[in-house]
């Protein structure tokens, strides 16, 4: 499982960085989204991977730490998801404004002559 997660994070991050460095604004925003997915998975993995372990105690009360997942990274991921979602939406608006003002979708607002 660790290998699968690690490869997934790697693929997402590398595709994200590739797209981030492209000259079209839409590619940049997709790249940012992919990167944020990679980072969210990474935060999650930092709480140690464990299948089938609940992060909260059941109604029975006491529990053994060995059978529970760390809840804190999950809370952090939730916050990070919300923030990166909002920022992506904001970036999208700026992207559209830039498209409307300059008439093209280059990140510098003007096409580079070949």
């Amino acid at each position, binding site marked *: 499982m660790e290998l699968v997660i690690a490869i997934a994070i790697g693929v997402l991050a590398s595709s994200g960085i590739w797209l981030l460095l492209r000259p079209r604004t839409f590619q940049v925003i997709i790249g940012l989204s992919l990167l944020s997915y990679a980072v969210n998975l990474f935060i999650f993995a930092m*709480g140690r991977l464990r299948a089938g372990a609940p992060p909260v105690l059941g109604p029975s009360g006491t529990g053994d730490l060995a059978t529970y997942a760390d809840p804190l990274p999950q809370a952090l991921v939730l916050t990070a998801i919300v*923030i990166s979602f909002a920022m992506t939406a904001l970036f999208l608006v700026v992207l559209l404004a830039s498209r409307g003002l300059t008439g093209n979708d280059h990140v510098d607002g003007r096409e580079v002559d070949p």
Partner: protein
Amino acid sequence: MNWLEHLTVAPILIPLVAGGFMLLLDGRNRTVAAAINVVATLSLLVVAIMLVALEGGQNAGGHVYLLGNWPAPFGIVLVADRLSVLMLLVTAILGSATLLFALARWDKAGAFFHPLFQFLLMGLNGAFLTGDIFNLFVFFEVLLAASYGLALHGSGPARVKAGLHYIAINLVAALLFLIGASLIYGTAGTLNMAALATRIAGLPPDERLLFEIGVAVLGVAFLVKSAMWPIGFWLPNTYAAAAPPIAAMFSILTKVGIYAVLRLGFLVSSSEDDVSLLFGGNWLMVGGIATILFGMIGIMASQEMAKLAGFSVLVSSGTLLAAIGYGGAAVTGGALFYLVSSTFAIAAFFLLIELVERGRAPADDVLAVTLEAYGLDDPDEADDSGEVGIAIPAIMAILGSAFIACAVLLSGLPPLSGFVAKFAILSALVEPTRGPTESWGAWAVFATILMSGLATLIAMTRAGIRTFWASIDRDLPHVRVVELAPVAILLILCIMLTVQAGWAMRYMRMTAEGLARPGAYIGAVFAAPPAQTEPFKAAPVATTADGGPP
């Protein structure tokens, strides 16, 4: 309960409530929003002054406020120590001055100036107060989200283009911040800054390596904010494109990165033998020197004054990073003094540029440079020689003296506070307190800081001659008192820093020494007792003495 206890959280709550309330108002109702904004910003100033009076004294650990009343390290803590309250005060002063300036006309350039301004203040204050890394991330995002909106305030192609770059690079920096924070949590098991400092020594070597990688990635995220070379190219364009009062307010944004580096850098290196050295100090010093050099070249090359101001932000950042990276309480104390002085000076300069450039065609600067370059200097100059009797108009004289004050402050010439700050850094650098291996670094920083002063002086003189002695026809700028007042306030504060330099320097030195010995900070965080609350009673008739619910 003593209300002074809750003063620590007020710098976050006041702008949050004010900004949230303004969102409910109709976006076109600017008078009420402006009034709320002024009241909130001024009350922040009062709170900041009270906090400095309360916490700036002998208590090195500062006041710890437990959010949600959970004891550290389980809950999030706010810590108001000397450095935090100093930054709060600088933010509040800068906020009041720029708001006053913006009220004259700039707040009408777009919708939602006032709420965004309050949210920016909230993010800044929260980032300065918090003692938790993830909470720091959240406040960074709050201030950045507000700054995206403010950078685009007034719209237009130049702002949207610069804003696009600014948002993209800061989103990547935010992702780096998250990677760093989660690596730190994955290895040390806590995000509380004080708890981190106590756990470093117990980490096994392989985890220690991962932890330091985490701190370094986090550091890169901070350094993007403080615009260190080579990750600071976004800054001059963004600041030059932003509306002038907003650019002036942004001059504190780079200092947030510096603050975070200072705060965390000293805490995570506290287990080392030499406690006065920062984590990754040598890298910071090299990066700082490179930033100063890049900023210097930019200052010399810029044709517009707004770009010139943007590059002086880079020079100021670089000077701070180089001085902080060299380390030592004396140098850091000087750097803190420089931080305050340069923030005020750059903000005043940004505001001044807008006043001076009013009434001149946008291409005038470029035209003047072209004329100089091709030797086509003023073909009709000879005709003007007879007009000796014409006095300099009063407004240009006032603006000109303010410009001279800015030039003196930014280049670090005597007699103003820029000189005191640079002298404090430089004289501490040459003190032979370290071994010979460090002395090359000291001399490199010394030489670069001096050279940057010279470059700033040359560029400012050239810009001043071109603007104030230009023979290109121009209308006199129409300037209102309310617009001139903020510039005057910021410059007078710099003069007061010069007059009261001894007192201010002592405060900075004490702050730097407190940072270098984080024991008091850590002790205060862990010793903070949760407030005693009465156990919940089911009987509804029982109320507490002050009449509130139990």
